């Protein structure tokens, strides 16, 4: 049984949605990053998605591109990411998930990567450039205790969503809109329509919605159609504007809408 799934289910059984928060590992600085992540959890986040910075993040919009570049300039590499994960996982029982592009994993060596995930308490991985067709090849040696979360998109259609649902573990990551992360102005009706299609076809997994969710109002809008929401760019933007110390305020605002 998946620890991530259990966790979401536990939250849902109390009558609320789960809130997953994306942080770029080592952004805005290596120093104090773990403190930032802990404060995010304390303020009401239910899980942390730790972004592994990459030079060419092609599914990301300008905000996460920038945070990724900043983290790389700070000298963040896979070793830092696992140290962060380990510290966060030791602090809280809430799941830590790594999110990153395939190439740095490949270079690190997948066998090493998986065993370091287990050793540092990482419960799941999200690799946006590994679609269902590449899943079997890429995740061949993945241990059972580590969930690979797949994404479903507005373009996927019922057939693909069923295939994605069958392969994904932990939850299905429902991409709310075509586009990169941090899309901003979501077309409400269109988005609800596309999320509903995913919702209908995800029968074996919990479903979390992400991409372009930035306010408590967004959360209320999508609440009836999902088991949880993922917020990334909006928080990074907030950190850019107000600094990491103010982050708990932002998280509390989101958590209030769950």
């Amino acid at each position, binding site marked *: 049984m998946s620890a991530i799934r259990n966790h979401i289910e536990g939250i849902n059984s109390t009558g609320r949605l789960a809130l997953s928060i994306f942080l770029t590992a080592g952004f805005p600085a290596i120093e104090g990053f773990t403190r930032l992540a802990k404060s995010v959890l304390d303020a009401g986040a239910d899980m942390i998605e730790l972004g592994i910075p990459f030079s060419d993040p*092609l*599914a990301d919009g300008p905000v996460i591109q920038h945070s990724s570049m900043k983290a790389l300039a700070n000298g963040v590499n896979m070793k830092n990411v696992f140290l962060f994960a380990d510290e966060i996982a030791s602090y809280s029982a809430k799941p830590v998930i790594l999110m990153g592009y395939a*190439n740095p994993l490949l270079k690190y060596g997948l066998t090493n990567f998986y065993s370091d995930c287990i050793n540092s308490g990482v419960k799941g991985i999200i690799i946006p450039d590994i679609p269902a*067709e590449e899943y079997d090849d890429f995740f061949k040696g993945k241990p059972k205790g580590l969930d690979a979360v797949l994404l*479903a*998109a507005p373009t*996927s259609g019922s057939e693909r969503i069923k295939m994605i649902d069958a392969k994904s573990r932990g939850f299905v990551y429902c*991409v709310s809109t*075509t*586009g990169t992360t941090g899309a901003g102005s979501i077309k409400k009706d269109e988005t609800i329509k596309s999320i509903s299609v995913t919702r209908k076809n995800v029968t074996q997994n919990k479903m979390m919605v992400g991409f372009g969710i930035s306010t408590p109002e967004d959360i209320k809008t999508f609440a009836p159609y999902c088991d949880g929401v993922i917020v990334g760019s909006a928080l990074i933007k907030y950190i850019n504007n107000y600094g990491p110390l103010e982050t708990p305020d932002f998280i509390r605002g989101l958590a209030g809408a769950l």
Partner: protein
Amino acid sequence: MKTSYNYPNSGGKFGPFGGRFVPETLMKPLIELEKVYNDAKKEKTFVNELALLQKDYNGRPTPLTFAGRLTKHFGRAKIYLKREDLCHTGAHKLNNALGQILLAIKLGKKRIIAETGAGQHGVATATVCAKFGLQCTVYMGEEDIERQKPNVFRMKLLGAEVKPVSSGSKTLKDATNEAIRDWVTNVETTHYIIGSVVGPHPYPVMVRDFQSVIGKEVWKQIMEREKKLPDHIIACVGGGSNAIGIFYPFVNNREVNLHGIEAAGLGIDTGKHCATLTLGTPGILHGMKTFLLQDEYGQVAPVHSISAGLDYPGVGPEHSILKQIKRVKYSSVTDTEALEGVKLLTQMEGILPALESAHAVAYLNKLMPKTKKDQIVVVNVSGRGDKDLNTIINHFEN
């Protein structure tokens, strides 16, 4: 033939290379594109329409020119030049853009996007968009906009919007990232015309098919002239579309030696080069698994070449398999050697090659001493050098 070459497989894999490493949003559009393309290439109307455009609009077949003075200069094998520089718009890029614009129309798309390095693919795409009345946006790195000004102006004149890309190294790699991001966002209305044999399946195989017209013509032309196949074919490799185009029809004829020439920039020991197949390791970028220049953490390395069209840290996945099975020999040529190549071809034959193509020309200095008088060498002159005059002038006047 028992060992006949048969890549890619149905999943777009060239052995361990290729594939489709893209966000889920693009999977269905890629599958649809693959289907439409596979149907189209069997349709007589599509094949005939494309052939007519290649002839009447692009000016194909391009000549295979015997390089008499150049041959005499080396005193070894006979040298022929495949004249892709005489294609409409000045390079082989239109071969592919024409094929893909017909597919875009079949797909019902109203908007076209493209990435460009040297601007040749951007110009080719803007050209077909003008001809067929489609909206066109071209992504181009800020550094390339600076060094390829005439092509930027041409694209604008053709009605395209040129979007400067300021992220990363501000060159072809970053322009490709932005084009993919645009496609992910506007996939319902937009077709992405990739300019080389790179990207997720079906692009590498589709662009190969459209560019193979080069090699097919060479086969026919050299058989008419010499009654035998060439001993050596040389082409430059950035993403590698002109090279795949001229190599592919000869891949099963092992007596034809194939040479892919990468850009060694300031030298392969300097870290300022883009000799991906010479020094790269397998990785994943732009939707494909292929050789890649990257650091020890899997971050894509900054690369350099005097030629904007070769300035790319990856390479088409088919080149990766051709390297692995040792069917093509990959070598590299420095910026300085390429500039000497420009001079050599211009002064010996009156043909000004693009800086990209000059890498292939420059390799003659290394290959020719090893050839014999009864042999034949074909060089793919993939484009003309007018666009590079600024860079060339700066070099020779300093």
